[in-house]
């Protein structure tokens, strides 16, 4: 099984040179730490910044420079600030090349649910609905099962949807899967995890074709 850091590390291999990338809160945020040298990317945050850098040094935090997680950040050379309408123009207009976000459930047709659990306090969808409805390349970072051991990769989502037919890939602590017309296509196994383990943990249709390689880092 992968740790959260390892999920992020594996996803970082999907980040190509020249990509503008939007990272969601949680595991996706960690992806920034693993982008290899020589791969030029720019991170966009939907509250209005492109070209995000690392956290500021202590004492250099600026309340006027934060990311969508409300964390203090810095910017890199070439950065820009803009308003929220322009920011979502970038997202809706498909100028952002890759979106990485977390999920509570993903269905085999690419539906995603990640914003609301009926009966619980609902905090809101933030920018997630705009992101999933607009982006062409969306990778979900998540645990394969919930704390009770139930699969989060489903035939159909049970929770209220964030978006439909939109996810392209899922990277979990157990596997890398691609969403296809026929369901979850297994691409890679986590080290030490068998195809049988993944089958058992996947409620949605799992497509296993040929030898499934182990991830390498």
């Amino acid at each position: 099984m992968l740790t959260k850091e390892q999920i992020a590390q594996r996803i970082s291999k999907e980040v190509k040179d020249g990509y503008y990338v939007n990272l969601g809160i949680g595991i996706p945020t960690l992806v920034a730490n693993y982008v290899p040298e020589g791969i030029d990317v720019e991170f966009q945050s939907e509250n209005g910044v492109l070209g995000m850098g690392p956290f500021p040094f202590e004492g250099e935090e600026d309340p006027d420079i934060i990311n969508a997680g409300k964390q203090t950040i810095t910017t890199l050379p070439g950065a820009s600030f803009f308003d929220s309408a322009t920011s979502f123009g970038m997202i809706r207009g498909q100028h952002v090349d890759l979106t990485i976000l977390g999920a509570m459930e993903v269905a085999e047709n690419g539906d995603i649910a990640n914003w609301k659990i009926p009966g619980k306090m609902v905090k809101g969808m933030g920018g997630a609905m705009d992101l999933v409805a607009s982006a062409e390349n969306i990778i979900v970072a998540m645990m394969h099962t919930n704390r009770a051991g139930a699969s989060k990769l489903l035939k159909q989502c049970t929770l209220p949807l964030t978006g439909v037919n939109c996810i392209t890939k899922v990277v979990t602590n157990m596997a890398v899967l691609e969403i296809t017309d026929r369901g979850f296509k297994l691409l890679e196994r986590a080290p030490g995890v068998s195809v049988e383990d993944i089958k058992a943990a996947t409620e949605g249709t799992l497509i296993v074709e040929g030898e499934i390689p182990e991830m390498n880092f």
Partner: protein
Amino acid sequence: MINRTVKDVAQATEGVQDGMTLMVGGFGLSGIPENSIAQLVKLGVTDLTCISNNAGVDDFGLGLLLQKKQIKKMISSYVGENDEFERQMLSGELEVELIPQGTLAERCRAAQAGIPAFYTPAGYGTEVAEGKEERSFDGKPHILEKAFKADFAFVKAWKGDEAGNLIFKGTARNFNPVMCGAATITVAEVEELVPAGELDPNQIHIPGIFVKRIFQGERYEKRIEQRTTRKRA
């Protein structure tokens, strides 16, 4: 030059009444109109509908209006980090309409720019689309969203001039520019108010025509919500 300055926050908020719909700029606690919010608390206006991306925290931002139960309804994209909000929402005291953040921004911008309605893919196939017209363009499904209508917009900028021109700083820009001119009366508070002519006309983010009243705010706290830092090497 048309002078848009008012002398203080009291004059800036003249005309705000119970039951009005207010737009309030800011993202989290960044770029919020601190002076105007404090004045709204002081005025004690109630039954407000607030259009704002977030709802502040318990003791800052719109949380101050929630404490006094001045807000009837929040229209936001994300409302976490606020226990009093949660309590009022779960008890049914507070009405909450959650909408996608990009749709929130675009509905403000539409109001500003005289676009009554537009199509967006955001929210299609979700409960956000319920009761809304759906239409496909190039095979991709979209929903129809309408421009907001609001009585007042309260925004905060970094610098402004007497003509009402505004310049924002960093990500404190966020929703502030798109709310300017999106309500009947737009009130801008700025950290520094300068005479007309001091700002470079090329570098103005929001022309004064979108701002009805401008004043220099006092004692900005600019609270940080998530202080994240790294150690020096």
